């Protein structure tokens, strides 16, 4: 071929390419991501952006410093401390703290109570972590911060939704004709309103490091660092979806839910990790990443290969975090997960944790500034980023046993302890806060070992009665580790957001409402989840979520039937009937109080609350099915799940704890008091809308 011919061929090919690029209709897909979409932000772009931001921040630091000096934005001379440390131990129960202190098991907490203060800490209505930690942050009641439960409801569809975040996915952007770009970057909104106290401190030049405080996703910008916690999704867009891979495909329904097949391939047993939804938007289609498992002849280990990495898995031990890339064209989304080989014979069973957003290359913002999570991961190695890290669902469904659940919980706890102590060392002045979840999750899952009357089955041979007492001792050691790092004049606050109680019996509030005639089903229609099958034109009240009962109000709900005047009478009637409700098993009272939220809440968002909140007696909770709007045949049932302890009872029965290394003169303390107390310690004016009192 001569030069002339070659040039003509190149020109011809170029024209063909140009023609097909311009005139052949096709989809130009560029979006990759879960549910609401992760887009190209998950690629190397974000890494480069992170570096650039870091450089810009460093170069602007002298200017910022000079600006703060000039504007007087720094810790006031009148401040009563230079540093406040808040150690949140979710769900620490005061009666157990008292018991273990008296038994000499909690020397550090005992010392804090003797040299400072120890009190019950009043919690929110209802006593749920998202509600209570939101009041901690903002210093206001739920009516002013808009978080009343894990769930809220859509007034037009009567469907539940997550209460803390709202994700909007814009429609695919169309150019013209069939040409479209499927790039869709989700817009995630935080629905917790008002403002956290660290934002107010930041406006006065006081820096805060805020680590894993519930209801901080998506992270808000302020003068400080924040790492998001509860309700941060996994890479699939769920609250944490585990998967079990198995060769026992003939015995289990492997096409449904969280169980997937392991199939013999050329390189060993092959499985596909399920990643974010496919960018094409096709329902049920996900990006995947293949892994292989090769059992070794010792029948105790196997080789796992994922991407370029091969590791040895031991039966019943968790792997380190492993990186997984989900590729689409030239883009990729990064995640991390842990494997646990549950069984090698007769079948191979492999547990895979929910696929977490990679903190080094976060596909969605999980920290502010965005490079904060990268910084932590570079400092201490990869770490879990999911909101609810401990896989309670996996344990309830027997994908994990008690010991594996405990191992997973303490792996998370160790990561967080390292993270917190590192950041504490870096916080020379200002505020450093971290919330630990192990105390809550362990009590949820192991309460049945302490409660001899609990109907849930126990596992043999694990000495699990020791788990809760040992957890309290571990938390006390953590308090000791923090205490060692304090300087003179530092203020240390150790607190829990609520206490704990047993959860033996379930109450299906929707079934009760049907029996009492307040909730009506359509004739001849089988009821389904999320109140499907309800005749809204004849219904007066319904329950969704853990916390409350909603009236079907005219002018508020789409098919409302209850007027403003009727509502008052109806609330009184339901309250009276519920308070006299008795469990036929043992003829016991099960409802301690019913709260009318129009009296209990104040604030701009009070109208979003359920109309009534049921304060159960300890031992009772709303049933698993009732939370999701499923009607059961009976109102009462035994709780047979491993999740055997809970705190969704009357808030008066489950206060949290408060330890401070200074004397508190007030006789009582409430979770809304913490925010104004910290502001006042730094001599920052407490905004008039805050409801709590200054404790110190």
């Amino acid at each position: 071929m001569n030069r002339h011919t070659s040039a003509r061929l190149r020109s011809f090919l170029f024209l063909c390419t140009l023609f097909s690029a311009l005139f052949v209709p096709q989809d130009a897909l560029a979006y990759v991501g879960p549910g609401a979409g992760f887009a190209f932000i998950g690629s190397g772009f974000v890494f480069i952006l992170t570096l650039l931001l870091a450089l810009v921040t460093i170069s602007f630091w002298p200017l910022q410093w000079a600006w703060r000096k000039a504007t007087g934005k720094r810790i006031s001379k009148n401040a009563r401390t230079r540093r406040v440390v808040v150690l949140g131990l979710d769900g620490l129960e005061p009666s157990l703290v008292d018991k273990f202190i008296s038994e000499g098991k909690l020397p550090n907490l005992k010392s804090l109570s003797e040299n400072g203060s120890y009190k019950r800490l009043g919690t929110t209505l209802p006593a749920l972590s998202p509600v209570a930690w939101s009041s901690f942050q903002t210093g206001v009641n739920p009516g002013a911060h808009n978080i009343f439960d894990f769930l809220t409801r859509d007034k037009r569809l009567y469907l539940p939704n997550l209460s803390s975040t709202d994700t909007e996915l814009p429609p695919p952007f169309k150019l013209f004709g069939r040409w479209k770009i499927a790039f869709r970057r989700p817009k995630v909104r935080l629905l917790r309103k008002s403002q956290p106290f660290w934002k107010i401190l930041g406006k006065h030049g006081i820096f805060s490091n805020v680590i894993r405080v519930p209801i901080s996703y998506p992270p808000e910008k302020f003068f400080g660092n924040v790492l998001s916690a509860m309700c941060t999704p996994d890479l699939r867009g769920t609250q944490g979806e585990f998967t079990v891979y198995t060769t026992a495909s003939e015995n289990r329904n492997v096409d449904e839910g969280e169980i997937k097949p392991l199939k013999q391939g050329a390189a060993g047993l092959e499985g596909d990790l399920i990643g974010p939804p496919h960018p094409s938007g096709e329902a049920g289609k996900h990006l995947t990443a293949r892994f292989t498992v090769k059992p070794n002849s010792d029948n105790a280990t196997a080789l796992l290969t994922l991407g370029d990495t091969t590791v040895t898995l031991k039966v019943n031990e968790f792997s380190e975090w492993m990186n997984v890339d989900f590729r689409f064209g030239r883009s990729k989304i990064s995640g991390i997960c842990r494997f646990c080989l549950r069984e090698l014979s007769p079948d191979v069973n492999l547990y895979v944790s929910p696929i977490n957003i990679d903190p080094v290359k976060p596909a969605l913002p999980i920290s502010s500034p965005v490079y904060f999570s990268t910084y932590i991961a570079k400092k201490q190695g990869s770490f879990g980023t999911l909101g609810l890290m401990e896989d309670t669902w996996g344990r309830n469904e027997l994908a994990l046993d008690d010991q594996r659940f405990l191992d997973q919980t303490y792996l998370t706890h160790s990561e967080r302890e390292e993270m917190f102590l590192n950041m504490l060392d870096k916080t020379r002045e200002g505020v450093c806060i971290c919330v630990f979840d192990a105390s809550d999750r362990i009590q949820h899952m192991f309460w049945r070992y302490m409660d001899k009357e609990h109907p849930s089955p126990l596992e043999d041979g694990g000495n699990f009665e020791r788990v809760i007492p040992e957890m309290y001792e571990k938390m006390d050691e953590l308090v000791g580790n923090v205490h060692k790092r304090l300087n003179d004049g530092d203020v240390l606050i150790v607190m829990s957001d609520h206490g704990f109680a047993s959860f033996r019996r379930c109450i299906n509030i929707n079934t009760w409402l049907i029996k009492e005639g307040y909730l009506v089903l359509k004739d001849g229609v089988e009821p389904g989840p999320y109140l499907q099958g309800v005749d809204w034109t004849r219904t007066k009240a319904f329950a969704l979520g853990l916390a409350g009962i909603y009236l079907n109000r005219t002018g508020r709900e789409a098919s409302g039937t209850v007027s403003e005047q009727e509502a008052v009478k109806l609330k009184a009637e339901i309250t009276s009937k519920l308070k006299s409700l008795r469990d036929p098993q043992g003829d016991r009272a099960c409802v301690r109080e019913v709260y009318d939220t129009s009296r209990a809440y104040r604030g701009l968002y009070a109208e979003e609350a359920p109309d009534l909140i049921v304060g159960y007696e300890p031992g009772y909770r709303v049933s698993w099915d009732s939370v999701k709007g499923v009607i059961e045949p009976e109102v009462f049932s035994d709780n047979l799940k491993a999740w055997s302890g809970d705190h969704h009872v009357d808030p008066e029965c489950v206060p949290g704890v408060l330890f401070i290394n200074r004397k508190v003169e007030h006789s009582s303390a409430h979770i809304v008091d913490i925010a104004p107390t910290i502001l006042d310690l730094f001599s920052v004016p407490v905004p008039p809308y805050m409801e709590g009192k200054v404790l110190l």
Partner: protein
Amino acid sequence: MFGPKIKIRPALMEKLKQAAEIVGCSSVNEYAEKVLESESAKVLASSGKSAISKEALQDITHKLKGLGYLE
């Protein structure tokens, strides 16, 4: 930067600022959004119940998966 904008008289803006501060909103934006959302929700509610699509049910089931208090 390129999102929808609404023009508001300066005098009304001042009132919104004051109200937002009193009720403890983080910004005037939060307050204005809440007020507009409440009013539009009332109007929409009176227009009747929307049909629930299969996709809406799947979407909510997917989002809530793994929330320990529900599973």
